[in-house]
Protein backbone atom coordinates (compact mmCIF):
# COMPACT_ATOMS: atom_id res chain seq x y z
CA UNK A 1 0.00 0.00 0.00
CA UNK A 2 2.69 2.47 0.97
CA UNK A 3 5.00 1.50 -1.85
CA UNK A 4 2.13 2.11 -4.20
CA UNK A 5 1.62 5.59 -2.75
CA UNK A 6 5.29 6.31 -3.06
CA UNK A 7 5.11 5.36 -6.68
CA UNK A 8 2.30 7.81 -7.21
CA UNK A 9 4.26 10.80 -5.99
CA UNK A 10 7.03 9.95 -8.36
CA UNK A 11 9.91 8.61 -6.26
CA UNK A 12 12.24 6.60 -8.46
CA UNK A 13 15.64 5.04 -8.10
CA UNK A 14 18.16 6.09 -10.72
CA UNK A 15 19.53 3.44 -13.00
CA UNK A 16 22.15 3.53 -15.72
CA UNK A 17 19.36 3.07 -18.20
CA UNK A 18 17.26 6.04 -17.06
CA UNK A 19 20.33 8.25 -16.92
CA UNK A 20 21.83 7.20 -20.28
CA UNK A 21 19.97 9.62 -22.55
CA UNK A 22 20.78 12.54 -20.26
CA UNK A 23 24.41 11.46 -19.95
CA UNK A 24 24.81 11.08 -23.70
CA UNK A 25 23.51 14.59 -24.20
CA UNK A 26 25.83 16.01 -21.57
CA UNK A 27 28.80 14.16 -23.01
CA UNK A 28 28.16 15.67 -26.44
CA UNK A 29 27.69 19.03 -24.78
CA UNK A 30 31.09 18.74 -23.08
CA UNK A 31 32.77 17.64 -26.30
CA UNK A 32 31.19 20.63 -28.05
CA UNK A 33 32.82 22.80 -25.37
CA UNK A 34 36.17 21.24 -26.28
CA UNK A 35 36.58 18.75 -23.44
CA UNK A 36 38.63 15.79 -24.79
CA UNK A 37 36.23 13.00 -25.87
CA UNK A 38 37.80 10.38 -23.68
CA UNK A 39 37.58 12.60 -20.61
CA UNK A 40 33.99 13.60 -21.35
CA UNK A 41 33.17 9.89 -21.42
CA UNK A 42 34.96 9.19 -18.19
CA UNK A 43 33.30 12.10 -16.44
CA UNK A 44 29.85 10.96 -17.48
CA UNK A 45 30.56 7.37 -16.49
CA UNK A 46 31.66 8.43 -13.05
CA UNK A 47 28.49 10.46 -12.60
CA UNK A 48 26.47 7.37 -13.54
CA UNK A 49 28.30 5.26 -10.98
CA UNK A 50 27.87 7.88 -8.30
CA UNK A 51 24.14 8.22 -8.87
CA UNK A 52 23.24 4.59 -9.56
CA UNK A 53 20.50 3.47 -7.16
CA UNK A 54 20.00 6.89 -5.68
CA UNK A 55 16.32 7.62 -4.96
CA UNK A 56 15.17 10.92 -6.34
CA UNK A 57 13.13 13.35 -4.27
CA UNK A 58 9.69 14.37 -5.42
CA UNK A 59 10.72 17.45 -7.31
CA UNK A 60 14.04 16.22 -8.70
CA UNK A 61 14.23 15.29 -12.33
CA UNK A 62 16.82 12.89 -13.69
CA UNK A 63 18.31 15.59 -15.87
CA UNK A 64 18.61 18.08 -13.05
CA UNK A 65 20.24 15.57 -10.71
CA UNK A 66 22.74 14.33 -13.28
CA UNK A 67 23.64 17.87 -14.26
CA UNK A 68 24.16 18.96 -10.66
CA UNK A 69 26.41 15.99 -9.95
CA UNK A 70 28.48 16.63 -13.08
CA UNK A 71 28.80 20.30 -12.18
CA UNK A 72 30.10 19.35 -8.75
CA UNK A 73 32.76 17.05 -10.14
CA UNK A 74 33.85 19.68 -12.68
CA UNK A 75 34.34 22.24 -9.92
CA UNK A 76 36.30 19.67 -7.94
CA UNK A 77 38.59 18.89 -10.90
CA UNK A 78 39.38 22.58 -11.33
CA UNK A 79 39.92 23.30 -7.65
CA UNK A 80 43.59 23.03 -6.71
CA UNK A 81 44.45 20.28 -4.28
CA UNK A 82 47.36 22.23 -2.92
CA UNK A 83 47.95 25.89 -2.42
CA UNK A 84 50.09 27.50 -5.07
CA UNK A 85 51.62 30.76 -3.94
CA UNK A 86 54.53 31.63 -6.15
CA UNK A 87 55.22 35.03 -4.59
CA UNK A 88 55.48 33.45 -1.15
CA UNK A 89 57.81 30.75 -2.49
CA UNK A 90 59.95 33.38 -4.21
CA UNK A 91 60.32 35.30 -0.95
CA UNK A 92 61.11 32.10 0.86
CA UNK A 93 63.92 31.29 -1.59
CA UNK A 94 65.18 34.84 -1.24
CA UNK A 95 65.42 34.38 2.53
CA UNK A 96 67.45 31.27 1.88
CA UNK A 97 69.74 33.42 -0.22
CA UNK A 98 69.08 31.69 -3.54
CA UNK A 99 67.08 32.48 -6.65
CA UNK A 100 63.68 30.89 -7.22
CA UNK A 101 63.73 29.02 -10.54
CA UNK A 102 60.79 28.42 -12.86
CA UNK A 103 61.03 26.48 -16.13
CA UNK A 104 58.47 26.78 -18.93
CA UNK A 105 57.84 23.92 -21.34
CA UNK A 106 55.28 22.91 -23.93
CA UNK A 107 54.69 22.22 -27.61
CA UNK A 108 55.42 24.75 -30.37
CA UNK A 109 53.78 28.13 -30.49
CA UNK A 110 51.51 27.82 -27.46
CA UNK A 111 52.77 31.03 -25.82
CA UNK A 112 55.66 29.98 -23.58
CA UNK A 113 57.86 33.01 -24.20
CA UNK A 114 55.04 35.56 -24.17
CA UNK A 115 53.53 34.30 -20.94
CA UNK A 116 56.97 34.04 -19.40
CA UNK A 117 57.27 37.77 -20.14
CA UNK A 118 53.86 38.43 -18.56
CA UNK A 119 54.84 36.49 -15.45
CA UNK A 120 58.07 38.46 -15.38
CA UNK A 121 56.03 41.67 -15.42
CA UNK A 122 53.92 40.40 -12.52
CA UNK A 123 57.02 39.50 -10.53
CA UNK A 124 58.68 42.90 -10.98
CA UNK A 125 55.41 44.61 -10.11
CA UNK A 126 55.83 42.70 -6.86
CA UNK A 127 59.33 44.08 -6.50
CA UNK A 128 61.18 40.88 -7.37
CA UNK A 129 64.10 41.06 -9.77
CA UNK A 130 64.20 38.57 -12.62
CA UNK A 131 66.77 36.90 -14.83
CA UNK A 132 65.37 35.48 -18.06
CA UNK A 133 67.36 32.51 -19.33
CA UNK A 134 67.13 32.25 -23.12
CA UNK A 135 67.25 28.46 -23.45
CA UNK A 136 65.38 28.27 -26.74
CA UNK A 137 68.51 28.16 -28.82
CA UNK A 138 66.75 26.72 -31.84
CA UNK A 139 63.87 28.80 -33.17
CA UNK A 140 64.81 31.79 -35.30
CA UNK A 141 64.24 35.04 -33.43
CA UNK A 142 63.68 33.35 -30.06
CA UNK A 143 66.52 35.23 -28.37
CA UNK A 144 65.58 38.60 -29.92
CA UNK A 145 61.97 38.02 -28.82
CA UNK A 146 63.12 37.80 -25.20
CA UNK A 147 65.52 40.72 -25.63
CA UNK A 148 62.66 42.88 -26.87
CA UNK A 149 60.54 41.90 -23.87
CA UNK A 150 63.43 42.60 -21.50
CA UNK A 151 63.82 46.08 -22.99
CA UNK A 152 60.09 46.82 -22.76
CA UNK A 153 59.85 45.54 -19.20
CA UNK A 154 62.81 47.59 -18.05
CA UNK A 155 61.27 50.65 -19.68
CA UNK A 156 58.06 50.02 -17.72
CA UNK A 157 60.02 49.54 -14.51
CA UNK A 158 63.09 51.76 -14.87
CA UNK A 159 65.93 51.40 -12.37
CA UNK A 160 65.04 54.87 -11.07
CA UNK A 161 61.94 53.37 -9.51
CA UNK A 162 63.76 50.40 -7.99
CA UNK A 163 66.74 51.81 -6.07
CA UNK A 164 68.84 51.89 -9.24
CA UNK A 165 68.36 48.17 -9.70
CA UNK A 166 67.75 46.69 -13.17
CA UNK A 167 64.64 44.61 -12.60
CA UNK A 168 65.01 42.34 -15.62
CA UNK A 169 68.15 40.93 -17.18
CA UNK A 170 68.47 38.61 -20.14
CA UNK A 171 70.93 35.77 -19.97
CA UNK A 172 71.63 34.52 -23.48
CA UNK A 173 74.32 32.66 -25.36
CA UNK A 174 72.85 32.87 -28.83
CA UNK A 175 71.76 29.89 -30.89
CA UNK A 176 72.79 26.30 -31.29
CA UNK A 177 74.09 25.81 -27.74
CA UNK A 178 73.09 23.26 -25.14
CA UNK A 179 70.02 24.58 -23.33
CA UNK A 180 70.67 22.74 -20.06
CA UNK A 181 74.13 24.30 -19.83
CA UNK A 182 72.85 27.82 -20.43
CA UNK A 183 70.17 27.34 -17.77
CA UNK A 184 72.83 26.24 -15.31
CA UNK A 185 75.06 29.25 -16.03
CA UNK A 186 72.04 31.54 -15.76
CA UNK A 187 71.11 30.21 -12.33
CA UNK A 188 74.67 30.65 -11.14
CA UNK A 189 74.71 34.17 -12.56
CA UNK A 190 71.45 34.97 -10.75
CA UNK A 191 72.92 33.63 -7.52
CA UNK A 192 76.03 35.77 -7.92
CA UNK A 193 74.07 38.90 -8.74
CA UNK A 194 71.44 38.28 -6.04
CA UNK A 195 68.63 38.18 -8.58
CA UNK A 196 65.39 36.93 -7.03
CA UNK A 197 63.87 34.78 -9.75
CA UNK A 198 65.09 32.90 -12.82
CA UNK A 199 62.61 32.25 -15.63
CA UNK A 200 63.82 29.59 -18.06
CA UNK A 201 62.39 29.78 -21.58
CA UNK A 202 62.68 26.55 -23.54
CA UNK A 203 62.13 25.69 -27.19
CA UNK A 204 58.76 24.34 -28.24
CA UNK A 205 58.78 20.62 -28.94
CA UNK A 206 56.38 17.91 -30.01
CA UNK A 207 55.71 15.37 -27.30
CA UNK A 208 56.64 12.51 -29.62
CA UNK A 209 60.03 13.92 -30.55
CA UNK A 210 62.27 11.75 -28.42
CA UNK A 211 65.61 13.59 -28.77
CA UNK A 212 63.98 16.90 -27.91
CA UNK A 213 62.04 15.40 -25.00
CA UNK A 214 65.24 13.87 -23.65
CA UNK A 215 66.94 17.24 -23.86
CA UNK A 216 64.13 18.82 -21.87
CA UNK A 217 64.27 16.10 -19.24
CA UNK A 218 67.99 16.70 -18.94
CA UNK A 219 67.50 20.44 -18.52
CA UNK A 220 65.02 19.84 -15.69
CA UNK A 221 66.98 17.05 -14.01
CA UNK A 222 70.28 18.94 -14.06
CA UNK A 223 68.97 22.30 -12.93
CA UNK A 224 66.27 21.23 -10.46
CA UNK A 225 63.98 24.22 -10.89
CA UNK A 226 61.57 24.98 -8.05
CA UNK A 227 58.64 24.85 -10.45
CA UNK A 228 58.10 23.26 -13.84
CA UNK A 229 55.22 24.90 -15.65
CA UNK A 230 53.58 23.27 -18.65
CA UNK A 231 52.24 25.84 -21.08
CA UNK A 232 49.21 24.70 -23.05
CA UNK A 233 46.83 26.70 -25.19
CA UNK A 234 43.10 26.74 -24.55
CA UNK A 235 42.61 26.12 -28.28
CA UNK A 236 43.96 22.58 -28.09
CA UNK A 237 41.51 19.72 -28.52
CA UNK A 238 41.92 16.02 -27.74
CA UNK A 239 45.66 16.46 -28.15
CA UNK A 240 45.82 18.09 -24.69
CA UNK A 241 45.73 14.66 -23.11
CA UNK A 242 48.59 13.22 -25.13
CA UNK A 243 50.74 16.33 -24.63
CA UNK A 244 50.49 16.26 -20.88
CA UNK A 245 50.80 12.51 -20.48
CA UNK A 246 53.92 12.44 -22.64
CA UNK A 247 55.60 15.52 -21.18
CA UNK A 248 55.13 14.07 -17.71
CA UNK A 249 56.29 10.65 -18.84
CA UNK A 250 59.38 12.02 -20.56
CA UNK A 251 60.36 14.05 -17.50
CA UNK A 252 59.98 10.91 -15.41
CA UNK A 253 61.50 8.33 -17.78
CA UNK A 254 64.45 10.25 -19.18
CA UNK A 255 65.62 11.52 -15.83
CA UNK A 256 68.13 9.41 -13.97
CA UNK A 257 66.81 10.62 -10.64
CA UNK A 258 64.81 8.26 -8.42
CA UNK A 259 62.30 11.01 -7.67
CA UNK A 260 62.14 12.90 -10.95
CA UNK A 261 60.62 16.35 -11.13
CA UNK A 262 57.51 16.34 -13.31
CA UNK A 263 54.97 19.04 -14.15
CA UNK A 264 53.95 21.16 -11.14
CA UNK A 265 51.42 23.40 -12.75
CA UNK A 266 49.82 24.62 -15.93
CA UNK A 267 49.74 27.93 -17.76
CA UNK A 268 46.59 27.97 -19.87
CA UNK A 269 47.08 30.47 -22.70
CA UNK A 270 45.00 32.14 -25.40
CA UNK A 271 41.95 31.94 -23.18
CA UNK A 272 40.70 35.05 -24.98
CA UNK A 273 40.40 33.21 -28.30
CA UNK A 274 37.93 30.45 -27.46
CA UNK A 275 34.65 32.14 -26.43
CA UNK A 276 32.88 29.64 -24.15
CA UNK A 277 34.73 26.56 -25.44
CA UNK A 278 36.69 26.30 -22.22
CA UNK A 279 36.97 22.50 -22.12
CA UNK A 280 40.77 22.36 -22.41
CA UNK A 281 40.93 23.60 -18.81
CA UNK A 282 39.15 20.42 -17.75
CA UNK A 283 41.18 18.10 -19.99
CA UNK A 284 44.48 19.47 -18.69
CA UNK A 285 43.67 19.42 -14.99
CA UNK A 286 41.91 16.06 -15.20
CA UNK A 287 45.00 14.43 -16.70
CA UNK A 288 47.65 15.92 -14.43
CA UNK A 289 45.76 16.65 -11.24
CA UNK A 290 47.90 19.79 -11.27
CA UNK A 291 46.51 23.29 -10.90
CA UNK A 292 46.19 25.91 -13.61
CA UNK A 293 48.48 28.49 -12.05
CA UNK A 294 48.04 31.23 -14.64
CA UNK A 295 45.60 31.94 -17.43
CA UNK A 296 46.80 33.95 -20.44
CA UNK A 297 44.05 36.20 -21.74
CA UNK A 298 45.75 38.31 -24.38
CA UNK A 299 48.99 39.54 -25.84
CA UNK A 300 49.95 42.32 -23.42
CA UNK A 301 51.75 42.10 -20.07
CA UNK A 302 48.62 42.59 -18.00
CA UNK A 303 46.74 39.78 -19.75
CA UNK A 304 47.52 37.26 -17.05
CA UNK A 305 44.83 36.01 -14.71
CA UNK A 306 44.15 33.41 -12.07
CA UNK A 307 41.66 30.71 -12.93
CA UNK A 308 38.11 31.21 -11.73
CA UNK A 309 36.89 27.63 -11.43
CA UNK A 310 33.24 28.55 -10.97
CA UNK A 311 33.18 30.83 -13.98
CA UNK A 312 34.81 28.13 -16.13
CA UNK A 313 32.30 25.52 -15.00
CA UNK A 314 29.47 27.94 -15.59
CA UNK A 315 30.68 28.51 -19.16
CA UNK A 316 31.01 24.75 -19.62
CA UNK A 317 27.52 23.87 -18.44
CA UNK A 318 25.77 26.80 -20.13
Amino acid at each position, binding site marked *: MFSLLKGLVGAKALSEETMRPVLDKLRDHLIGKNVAADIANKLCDSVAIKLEGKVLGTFDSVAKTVKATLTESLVRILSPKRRVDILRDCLHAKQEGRPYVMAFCGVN*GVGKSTNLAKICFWLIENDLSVLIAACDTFRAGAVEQLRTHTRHLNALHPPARHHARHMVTLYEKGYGKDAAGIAMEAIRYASDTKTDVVLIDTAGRMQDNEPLMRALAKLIAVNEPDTVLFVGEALVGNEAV*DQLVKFNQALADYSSSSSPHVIDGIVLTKFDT*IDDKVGAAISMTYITGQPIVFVGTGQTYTDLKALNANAVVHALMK
Partner: protein
Amino acid sequence: MVLADLGRKITTALQSLSRATIINEEVLNSMLKQICAALLEADVNIRLVKNLRENVRAVIDFDEMAGGLNKRRMIQSAVFKELVKLVDPGVKPYQPVKGKPNVIMYVGLQGSGKTTTCTKLAYHYLRKNWKSCLVCADTFRAGAYDQVKQNCTKARIPFYGSYTEVDPVVIATTGVDMFKKQGLEMIIVDTSGRHKQEESLFEEMLAVATAIKPDNIIFVMDATIGQACEAQARAFKDKVDIGSVIITKLDGHAKGGGALSAVAATQSPIIFIGTGEHIDDLEPFKTKPFIKKLLGMGDIEGLLDK
Protein backbone atom coordinates in the same frame (compact mmCIF):
# COMPACT_ATOMS: atom_id res chain seq x y z
CA MET B 1 49.47 11.29 -41.93
CA VAL B 2 46.42 13.47 -41.28
CA LEU B 3 43.56 11.36 -40.06
CA ALA B 4 45.31 8.05 -40.75
CA ASP B 5 44.01 6.76 -37.46
CA LEU B 6 40.56 7.99 -38.27
CA GLY B 7 40.68 6.33 -41.66
CA ARG B 8 41.42 2.99 -40.01
CA LYS B 9 38.60 3.35 -37.50
CA ILE B 10 36.13 4.26 -40.19
CA THR B 11 37.19 1.34 -42.32
CA THR B 12 36.67 -0.97 -39.36
CA ALA B 13 33.23 0.49 -38.72
CA LEU B 14 32.27 0.05 -42.36
CA GLN B 15 33.43 -3.55 -42.28
CA SER B 16 30.92 -4.22 -39.53
CA LEU B 17 28.32 -3.74 -42.26
CA SER B 18 29.80 -6.49 -44.37
CA ARG B 19 29.88 -8.84 -41.42
CA ALA B 20 26.27 -8.27 -40.39
CA THR B 21 23.84 -10.78 -41.88
CA ILE B 22 21.01 -8.31 -42.05
CA ILE B 23 21.32 -4.58 -42.21
CA ASN B 24 18.80 -3.08 -39.87
CA GLU B 25 18.45 0.11 -37.89
CA GLU B 26 20.49 -1.36 -35.06
CA VAL B 27 23.45 -2.24 -37.25
CA LEU B 28 23.40 1.20 -38.88
CA ASN B 29 23.19 2.99 -35.55
CA SER B 30 26.03 1.05 -34.08
CA MET B 31 28.20 1.73 -37.09
CA LEU B 32 27.37 5.43 -37.02
CA LYS B 33 28.13 5.54 -33.34
CA GLN B 34 31.59 4.13 -33.98
CA ILE B 35 32.26 6.53 -36.81
CA CYS B 36 31.07 9.57 -34.89
CA ALA B 37 33.11 8.63 -31.82
CA ALA B 38 36.20 8.32 -34.03
CA LEU B 39 35.52 11.70 -35.63
CA LEU B 40 35.06 13.39 -32.27
CA GLU B 41 38.26 11.88 -30.93
CA ALA B 42 40.01 13.35 -33.94
CA ASP B 43 38.62 16.80 -33.00
CA VAL B 44 36.26 17.11 -35.96
CA ASN B 45 33.72 19.82 -35.23
CA ILE B 46 30.74 18.41 -33.34
CA ARG B 47 28.21 20.12 -35.59
CA LEU B 48 29.80 18.63 -38.69
CA VAL B 49 29.71 15.22 -37.00
CA LYS B 50 26.03 15.60 -36.17
CA ASN B 51 25.28 16.63 -39.74
CA LEU B 52 27.16 13.63 -41.03
CA ARG B 53 25.16 11.29 -38.82
CA GLU B 54 21.85 12.80 -39.88
CA ASN B 55 22.73 12.87 -43.56
CA VAL B 56 23.71 9.20 -43.58
CA ARG B 57 20.58 8.26 -41.69
CA ALA B 58 18.41 10.24 -44.05
CA VAL B 59 19.63 8.20 -47.01
CA ILE B 60 18.30 4.95 -45.65
CA ASP B 61 14.66 4.20 -45.18
CA PHE B 62 14.43 0.71 -43.71
CA ASP B 63 10.70 0.43 -44.22
CA GLU B 64 10.84 1.01 -47.92
CA MET B 65 13.96 -0.87 -48.78
CA ALA B 66 14.68 -4.48 -49.40
CA GLY B 67 17.84 -6.36 -50.22
CA GLY B 68 20.96 -6.41 -48.02
CA LEU B 69 23.50 -5.63 -50.68
CA ASN B 70 21.82 -2.50 -51.84
CA LYS B 71 21.50 -1.13 -48.32
CA ARG B 72 25.11 -1.88 -47.59
CA ARG B 73 26.30 -0.02 -50.67
CA MET B 74 24.00 2.89 -50.04
CA ILE B 75 25.24 3.30 -46.49
CA GLN B 76 28.88 3.01 -47.47
CA SER B 77 28.44 5.45 -50.28
CA ALA B 78 26.65 7.93 -47.99
CA VAL B 79 29.44 7.72 -45.42
CA PHE B 80 32.09 8.27 -48.09
CA LYS B 81 30.28 11.25 -49.50
CA GLU B 82 30.01 12.86 -46.10
CA LEU B 83 33.70 12.29 -45.36
CA VAL B 84 34.66 13.73 -48.70
CA LYS B 85 32.62 16.80 -47.86
CA LEU B 86 34.78 17.30 -44.75
CA VAL B 87 38.01 17.50 -46.71
CA ASP B 88 36.96 18.62 -50.15
CA PRO B 89 35.28 22.01 -50.59
CA GLY B 90 34.95 21.29 -54.28
CA VAL B 91 36.91 24.34 -55.44
CA LYS B 92 40.30 24.50 -57.09
CA PRO B 93 43.08 26.34 -55.26
CA TYR B 94 44.73 29.41 -56.73
CA GLN B 95 47.51 28.38 -59.08
CA PRO B 96 50.47 30.78 -59.02
CA VAL B 97 51.67 31.78 -62.47
CA LYS B 98 55.37 31.84 -63.24
CA GLY B 99 56.75 34.92 -64.92
CA LYS B 100 54.43 37.38 -63.20
CA PRO B 101 54.22 38.59 -59.59
CA ASN B 102 52.02 36.41 -57.37
CA VAL B 103 51.23 38.12 -54.09
CA ILE B 104 50.25 35.66 -51.38
CA MET B 105 49.20 36.83 -47.93
CA TYR B 106 49.32 34.53 -44.91
CA VAL B 107 46.88 34.91 -42.02
CA GLY B 108 45.91 32.91 -38.95
CA LEU B 109 45.69 32.61 -35.20
CA GLN B 110 48.64 33.42 -32.93
CA GLY B 111 51.41 30.84 -33.01
CA SER B 112 49.76 28.69 -35.67
CA GLY B 113 53.00 28.58 -37.67
CA LYS B 114 52.55 31.36 -40.24
CA THR B 115 56.09 32.72 -40.21
CA THR B 116 57.67 29.27 -40.35
CA THR B 117 55.31 28.25 -43.15
CA CYS B 118 56.01 31.46 -45.12
CA THR B 119 59.71 30.63 -45.13
CA LYS B 120 59.01 27.03 -46.10
CA LEU B 121 56.87 28.16 -49.03
CA ALA B 122 59.35 30.78 -50.20
CA TYR B 123 62.03 28.11 -50.10
CA HIS B 124 59.79 25.58 -51.85
CA TYR B 125 59.37 27.95 -54.80
CA LEU B 126 62.98 29.08 -54.70
CA ARG B 127 64.06 25.50 -55.21
CA LYS B 128 61.75 25.21 -58.19
CA ASN B 129 63.60 28.20 -59.67
CA TRP B 130 60.95 30.79 -58.95
CA LYS B 131 62.11 34.22 -57.88
CA SER B 132 60.56 34.18 -54.44
CA CYS B 133 60.76 36.49 -51.45
CA LEU B 134 59.19 37.37 -48.10
CA VAL B 135 57.69 40.54 -46.65
CA CYS B 136 57.39 40.72 -42.86
CA ALA B 137 54.24 42.71 -42.09
CA ASP B 138 54.13 41.57 -38.47
CA THR B 139 54.92 44.68 -36.43
CA PHE B 140 53.42 43.34 -33.22
CA ARG B 141 55.14 40.17 -32.12
CA ALA B 142 58.42 40.70 -30.31
CA GLY B 143 61.28 39.47 -32.47
CA ALA B 144 59.06 38.84 -35.51
CA TYR B 145 61.33 40.64 -37.95
CA ASP B 146 64.42 38.92 -36.54
CA GLN B 147 62.71 35.58 -37.04
CA VAL B 148 62.07 36.34 -40.71
CA LYS B 149 65.51 37.83 -41.16
CA GLN B 150 67.32 34.82 -39.69
CA ASN B 151 65.20 32.30 -41.58
CA CYS B 152 65.58 34.11 -44.89
CA THR B 153 69.28 34.79 -44.50
CA LYS B 154 69.94 31.13 -43.87
CA ALA B 155 67.91 30.05 -46.89
CA ARG B 156 69.06 32.95 -49.13
CA ILE B 157 65.56 34.25 -49.61
CA PRO B 158 65.25 38.01 -50.32
CA PHE B 159 63.19 39.68 -47.57
CA TYR B 160 61.79 43.03 -46.57
CA GLY B 161 60.78 44.39 -43.17
CA SER B 162 61.43 47.18 -40.71
CA TYR B 163 62.45 47.62 -37.08
CA THR B 164 60.99 51.08 -36.84
CA GLU B 165 57.84 51.26 -38.96
CA VAL B 166 54.83 50.32 -36.82
CA ASP B 167 52.15 50.23 -39.51
CA PRO B 168 51.88 46.81 -41.20
CA VAL B 169 50.00 48.38 -44.12
CA VAL B 170 52.95 50.63 -44.90
CA ILE B 171 55.46 47.79 -44.68
CA ALA B 172 53.34 45.43 -46.76
CA THR B 173 52.74 48.00 -49.49
CA THR B 174 56.34 49.14 -49.62
CA GLY B 175 57.68 45.58 -49.63
CA VAL B 176 55.27 44.28 -52.25
CA ASP B 177 55.80 47.29 -54.55
CA MET B 178 59.54 46.99 -54.25
CA PHE B 179 59.60 43.28 -55.05
CA LYS B 180 57.13 43.71 -57.91
CA LYS B 181 59.44 46.30 -59.45
CA GLN B 182 62.35 43.90 -59.04
CA GLY B 183 60.42 41.30 -60.98
CA LEU B 184 59.92 38.72 -58.26
CA GLU B 185 57.41 36.01 -58.96
CA MET B 186 56.39 34.68 -55.56
CA ILE B 187 55.88 37.51 -53.09
CA ILE B 188 54.92 36.10 -49.72
CA VAL B 189 53.50 38.43 -47.06
CA ASP B 190 53.64 37.28 -43.43
CA THR B 191 51.25 38.96 -40.98
CA SER B 192 50.73 39.01 -37.21
CA GLY B 193 48.72 36.37 -35.45
CA ARG B 194 45.18 37.45 -34.63
CA HIS B 195 41.84 36.20 -33.36
CA LYS B 196 38.24 37.13 -34.04
CA GLN B 197 37.60 38.45 -30.54
CA GLU B 198 39.85 41.44 -31.15
CA GLU B 199 38.16 43.54 -33.78
CA SER B 200 41.08 45.95 -34.29
CA LEU B 201 43.32 43.05 -35.32
CA PHE B 202 40.77 41.95 -37.89
CA GLU B 203 40.47 45.51 -39.21
CA GLU B 204 44.24 45.59 -39.57
CA MET B 205 44.17 42.35 -41.59
CA LEU B 206 41.53 43.81 -43.88
CA ALA B 207 43.55 47.00 -44.28
CA VAL B 208 46.64 45.05 -45.35
CA ALA B 209 44.62 42.93 -47.78
CA THR B 210 42.94 45.99 -49.26
CA ALA B 211 46.28 47.72 -49.69
CA ILE B 212 48.22 44.92 -51.36
CA LYS B 213 45.36 43.14 -53.16
CA PRO B 214 46.84 39.66 -52.82
CA ASP B 215 46.22 37.02 -55.48
CA ASN B 216 45.55 34.51 -52.71
CA ILE B 217 45.10 34.60 -48.96
CA ILE B 218 46.20 31.50 -47.12
CA PHE B 219 44.78 30.55 -43.74
CA VAL B 220 47.34 28.73 -41.58
CA MET B 221 45.88 26.39 -38.98
CA ASP B 222 47.58 24.32 -36.31
CA ALA B 223 46.73 20.60 -36.33
CA THR B 224 46.25 20.42 -32.56
CA ILE B 225 43.25 22.74 -32.50
CA GLY B 226 39.95 21.50 -31.14
CA GLN B 227 36.39 22.76 -31.28
CA ALA B 228 37.31 26.45 -31.42
CA CYS B 229 38.61 26.17 -34.99
CA GLU B 230 35.33 26.50 -36.78
CA ALA B 231 34.26 29.86 -35.36
CA GLN B 232 37.72 31.35 -35.86
CA ALA B 233 38.06 30.07 -39.43
CA ARG B 234 34.60 31.35 -40.32
CA ALA B 235 35.39 34.78 -38.87
CA PHE B 236 38.62 35.02 -40.89
CA LYS B 237 36.75 34.06 -44.05
CA ASP B 238 34.04 36.63 -43.34
CA LYS B 239 36.65 39.36 -43.07
CA VAL B 240 39.01 38.57 -45.96
CA ASP B 241 38.82 36.39 -49.03
CA ILE B 242 40.62 33.25 -47.94
CA GLY B 243 41.41 30.93 -50.84
CA SER B 244 43.51 28.13 -49.35
CA VAL B 245 44.35 26.41 -46.10
CA ILE B 246 47.65 25.07 -44.77
CA ILE B 247 47.65 22.77 -41.76
CA THR B 248 50.83 22.81 -39.67
CA LYS B 249 52.43 20.66 -36.97
CA LEU B 250 51.29 17.37 -38.42
CA ASP B 251 54.58 15.79 -37.43
CA GLY B 252 53.22 15.48 -33.92
CA HIS B 253 50.60 13.12 -32.67
CA ALA B 254 47.71 15.39 -33.62
CA LYS B 255 45.01 13.87 -35.73
CA GLY B 256 44.20 17.13 -37.40
CA GLY B 257 40.44 16.72 -37.50
CA GLY B 258 39.84 20.03 -35.75
CA ALA B 259 41.77 21.89 -38.38
CA LEU B 260 39.64 20.24 -41.05
CA SER B 261 36.67 22.35 -40.02
CA ALA B 262 38.69 25.22 -41.47
CA VAL B 263 38.08 23.64 -44.87
CA ALA B 264 34.33 23.64 -44.43
CA ALA B 265 34.25 27.05 -42.76
CA THR B 266 36.37 28.78 -45.40
CA GLN B 267 35.24 26.64 -48.31
CA SER B 268 38.90 26.45 -49.26
CA PRO B 269 41.10 23.47 -50.01
CA ILE B 270 44.19 22.42 -48.09
CA ILE B 271 47.22 22.97 -50.32
CA PHE B 272 50.19 22.08 -48.11
CA ILE B 273 50.80 20.49 -44.74
CA GLY B 274 53.62 21.32 -42.34
CA THR B 275 55.45 18.36 -40.88
CA GLY B 276 58.25 19.84 -38.79
CA GLU B 277 60.19 22.89 -37.76
CA HIS B 278 62.77 22.70 -40.54
CA ILE B 279 62.53 24.60 -43.78
CA ASP B 280 61.89 21.55 -45.96
CA ASP B 281 59.28 19.98 -43.65
CA LEU B 282 56.48 20.78 -46.06
CA GLU B 283 54.34 18.50 -48.19
CA PRO B 284 51.98 19.40 -51.00
CA PHE B 285 48.44 18.25 -50.33
CA LYS B 286 46.01 17.02 -52.95
CA THR B 287 42.47 16.45 -51.80
CA LYS B 288 41.29 13.59 -54.01
CA PRO B 289 44.31 11.28 -53.69
CA PHE B 290 44.28 11.99 -49.98
CA ILE B 291 40.72 10.80 -49.57
CA LYS B 292 41.49 7.67 -51.55
CA LYS B 293 44.45 6.91 -49.36
CA LEU B 294 42.56 7.79 -46.20
CA LEU B 295 39.75 5.43 -46.81
CA GLY B 296 42.03 2.88 -48.37
CA MET B 297 39.26 1.19 -50.27
CA GLY B 298 39.56 0.01 -53.80
CA ASP B 299 36.00 0.63 -54.86
CA ILE B 300 35.81 4.17 -53.48
CA GLU B 301 35.92 5.72 -56.96
CA GLY B 302 32.82 3.81 -57.95
CA LEU B 303 31.04 4.76 -54.78
CA LEU B 304 31.85 8.41 -55.17
CA ASP B 305 30.76 8.66 -58.77
CA LYS B 306 27.19 7.83 -57.92
